[in-house]
């Protein structure tokens, strides 16, 4: 939350980041279960657009990277590229058990995950698949980290 002594512009930017998070959804070899649950969040029943959240097609325009799946060999390079293409400030949300632990695929030679071996992860949403409520809660936590982001002199990293 906003500490005392911050400028009005500063608080405006924080507020804007809280109210306008654009998601990029990356399927790193998921079974599609988590993807369906994520899309469910956009339907009239859950309607996350109320919070200013929308799915973006281009990683250049995204703030939140939502990854589902245990990161297979075939998707690793694409995942790294996509992560690099998202401008700062950005947060990564791991949707489901697969990106967190590799789930039932753990130990497979085709799997390069879990996700935090490859890119830094901010929020884990457990479940196989997680319910839309949990996904919305996880994204809300991610947005909180997004709003509290401070640029460092080194540029970029938190």
């Amino acid at each position: 939350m906003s500490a005392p002594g911050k400028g009005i512009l500063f608080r405006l930017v924080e507020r804007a980041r809280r109210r306008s998070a654009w998601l990029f959804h990356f399927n790193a070899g998921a079974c599609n279960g988590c993807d369906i649950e994520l899309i469910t969040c956009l339907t009239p029943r859950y309607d996350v657009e109320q919070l200013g959240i929308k799915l973006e097609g281009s990683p250049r325009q995204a703030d939140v990277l939502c990854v589902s799946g245990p990161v297979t060999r075939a998707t690793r390079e694409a995942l790294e590229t996509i992560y690099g293409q998202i401008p700062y400030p950005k947060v990564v949300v791991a949707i489901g058990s697969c990106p967190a632990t590799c789930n039932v695929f753990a130990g497979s030679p085709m799997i390069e995950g879990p996700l935090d071996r490859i890119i830094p992860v901010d929020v884990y949403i457990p479940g196989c698949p997680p319910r839309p409520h949990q996904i919305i809660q996880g994204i809300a936590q991610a947005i909180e980290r997004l709003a509290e982001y401070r640029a460092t002199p080194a540029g970029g990293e938190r």
Partner: protein
Amino acid sequence: MNAWRALFALLVFPGLLYALPMGWFMLGAGRKLTARFQGRIGPPLSQPFYDVVKLLAKQPVARVPAEKWLLTSLPLLAVGAVLGALALLPVFSSETGFVGDLVLLVGLLELPPLCMILAGYASRSIYGEVGATREAALSIASNVPYLAALVAMAAAAGSLHLSQIAVATPWMVRLPALLTILLCLPVKLRTNPFSLSNAEQEILAGPLTEFDGRQLALWELAHGLEWVALTGFVATLAVPLRSSHLFFDFLGFVLISLVLVLLLNLLAAATARFKLWQATRLLWRWASLLAAVALAVAFYLRHGGY
């Protein structure tokens, strides 16, 4: 139009000070209306404002200087062109304009789509190129009937003064011409069913795929201003009379613009996206037919005495 008056039109009304909040309001209302039509609650009306603030606060992506220069100047040019077009709109009866202001206004309104096509190719993204190609094809298909309708109105009114065209065009010409322009309006604003160039879930963000942060914020601004300018343009062309009272002129202008926003969003929520051949065929067939009718009636009225 003296210099002070031009400056007022550019910066206050119907320029920056009016058009910026109005553009945000129109974009926000569009998203809200679409959500309501789909049975959702939708984002608050202030959403486009927060989107722009957030985009401005994103860290820019490192680019080669030439590319950075190009990708920043194109949306800036688009914003400037739409602001110039807005300043030329004759909202009040006291504004007489100058000879040929119609030509200048139409030219300025055509710049943002052109910038977007260039931006799509300049970004060197496949999606950008596909989007730019679609935008170019639609732009040609819509501009032929659109310009023909404007020529018909100008010929019927016997003037290139925007204010005189708005007042003097007879209804027999105005009706088919306005219908043509209305048909071209969703094409120019890239809304459904003509949202081919920025088709999300299909070609990512179209020509704007490579744009990030500040440059994307500029495009969002240009898009909001385009809504104000194009609906305002139709509003000035549609009403044949100006009251002598400034306030009523202003009120009529704003109300017609907002009704157009409502109708366009209703159309967008009710329809799916056309394929490119369907959209161009519709424009070449029906919009051209309407424009041809307008042109024929205009020239008959003009030379009918022989």
